[in-house]
């Protein structure tokens, strides 16, 4: 789960990281009031889950409170990479002498939380890693000891030769690490970490990504989810305990298991079609999941054909068949459906489907080819 910048900054501030004062606004009036309260100049920053906000015109420098109002007016409602801006962060603008990058990720290779720090801040760290890797210091943290003081100081001195700044940065590293662990992050970064002309350190931008598996035990963090920033169909799916990702194609896919779901999408593409979604109904046989899956998929007007691909291992295919029958009785389909199922109770499933006017195949390739043809409006 991604946090907004303002949410990440609140968590960082609570951990002691120096963050410029500011608050989130949802109207131009509020933006003006915040600018007046904290003092100008301010930055007005779009709060959306997308990179490249600045390039899209979603981050503006404002010299006066009236200016903040005007810029907020322009940014609120703006579309950035398909997402509508509902909130802006109004925050005191910092004077910048230099910018650094400080981040922590859970690294798959070392199987540890790893710090990445670079004096080349303010830009895309992936680009720095690709072009000038020597400008980045990587420091894996041993989870048994946490970030040790000498490690934090080593990173501080990597960024700043000045001892006062290095110590200040080391303290921020510790605070960032604490925030990272306490929020259950898979990524936390300060970019840029700014040194002001008066030699103060400030975190001018912050980003946090929370490991979804942490949310059950961290209700305070789970409460930060902003559903308005997600596709409504994905919110609906999550509430129904389905894993759903909307795509641009027209073949709606309902599959059990993530790997098979990806392989099914790939096979749709292989045969010249385009998947409309990723959808994993999981390992259980609950017919209600099938009902919810069909409701979510058929709400997408792009979908021209629905493809079921079920491998019955633990999942009972007769339960899935019953789910299909129930769902289509409640809401009759307006697009063709292709059903492939094989495995546990396949014969019973086929009987159920046949008795209700459906046909089904046990061959994955055959079913996918048929679904692709139907989605294109060809007779299959």
């Amino acid at each position, binding site marked *: 789960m991604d946090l907004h910048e303002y949410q990440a900054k609140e968590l960082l501030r609570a951990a002691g990281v120096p963050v410029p004062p500011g608050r989130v606004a949802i109207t131009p009036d509020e933006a003006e009031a915040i600018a007046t309260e904290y003092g100008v100049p301010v930055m007005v920053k779009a709060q959306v889950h997308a990179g490249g906000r600045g390039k899209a015109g979603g981050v503006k420098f404002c010299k006066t409170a009236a200016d903040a109002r005007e810029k907020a007016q322009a940014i609120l409602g703006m579309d950035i990479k398909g997402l509508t801006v509902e909130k802006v962060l109004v925050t005191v603008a910092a004077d910048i002498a230099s910018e650094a990058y400080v981040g922590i990720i859970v690294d*798959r290779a070392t199987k540890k939380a790893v710090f990445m720090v670079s004096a080349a801040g303010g830009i895309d760290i992936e680009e720095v890693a690709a072009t000038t890797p020597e400008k980045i210091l990587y420091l894996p943290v041993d989870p048994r000891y946490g970030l040790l003081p000498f490690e934090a100081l080593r990173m501080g001195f990597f960024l700043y030769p000045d001892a006062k700044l290095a110590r200040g940065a080391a303290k921020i590293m510790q605070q960032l690490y604490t925030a990272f662990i306490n929020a259950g992050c898979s990524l936390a970064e300060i970019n840029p970490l700014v040194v002001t002309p008066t030699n103060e350190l400030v975190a001018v931008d912050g980003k946090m990504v929370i490991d979804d598996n942490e949310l059950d035990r961290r209700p305070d963090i789970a409460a930060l989810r902003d559903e308005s920033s997600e596709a409504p169909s994905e919110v609906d799916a999550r509430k129904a305990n389905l894993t759903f990702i909307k795509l641009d194609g027209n073949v709606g896919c309902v599959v059990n298991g993530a790997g098979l779901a990806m392989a099914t999408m*790939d096979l749709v593409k292989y045969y010249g079609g385009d998947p409309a979604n*990723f959808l994993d109904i999981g*390992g259980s046989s609950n017919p209600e999941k099938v009902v919810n899956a069909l409701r979510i998929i058929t709400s997408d007007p792009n979908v021209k054909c629905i493809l079921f691909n079920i491998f019955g291992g633990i999942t009972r295919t007769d339960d899935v068949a019953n789910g299909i029958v129930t769902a289509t009785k409640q809401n009759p389909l307006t697009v063709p459906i292709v059903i492939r199922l094989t495995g546990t109770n396949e014969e019973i499933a086929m009987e159920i489907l046949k008795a209700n006017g459906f046909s089904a195949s046990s061959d994955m390739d055959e079913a996918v080819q048929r679904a692709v043809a139907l989605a294109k409006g060809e007779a299959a």
Partner: protein
Amino acid sequence: MSIFIDKDTTLLVQGITGRDGSFHAKQMMEYGTRVVGGVTPGKGGQVFEGTVPIFDTVHQAVHATGANTTVIYVPPPFAADAIMEAAAAGIKLIVCITEGVPVLDMTRVYPFVKEHGARLIGPNCPGLITPGASKVGIIPGRICTPGNVGIVSRSGTLTYEIVHQLTRAGIGQSSCVGIGGDPINGTNFIDCLAAFEADPHTKAVAMMGEIGGTDEQEAATFIKEHMTKPVVGFIAGQTAPPGRRMGHAGAIISGSSGTAAEKIDAFKAAGMGVASRPVDFVELISARLR
């Protein structure tokens, strides 16, 4: 012959009284796995299905039964502790089926398991099976048949699909290992490939990877440098958009890294057979067994 489990595997089931644990314990017993004990804190002294003693702790269970392997079906918040409990009790093979274990928990679990000299498979995996001998986890026994193809995969149902197609084509398996779909897991492709290379009964290996991370790329390098047996690979997620988790916590393209294309290129560079579709495994594996 096989890797990791065989007829001598003596198994504990952690979480044996839960919904999933009890269901799969029965399935494993029906398959012929030697389930020697169960563990559920607070239910020590009870007996499962009339034959399997239940213990409060893994320590007691190991002491009483001498089990060498455990399978874990406990809910995500308790899974990390269950894994470490098993390692501390001297279990050498720990299979964690649980999906949803926080990755920061795994950063602590991984070194702990290593220090205790144990092997962890998973979490978020279907476990493993040596057809005709033993099954530990949830892989449906009836889709498998004994043979000489090793299977290693990050996925569950996709693996079943491919194993099923191989079995129908008369191609049996030495062992099938699901290593799991999480970003940090206990056993990776290379561990399994090395074990298959060392297993005299395995003649070829089918591996199913997916987007996210670099495990497949490293496996390709290992195959090129260290394996004499043929390996056929597949990557799921060629149509996955970047930055989105495709169901598995580890199946995500980060920036421009972890794409299906780079993994397939690595396979090709290692001289491996590459299956474009699941069904292609049948032909590609057959050709390599001839």
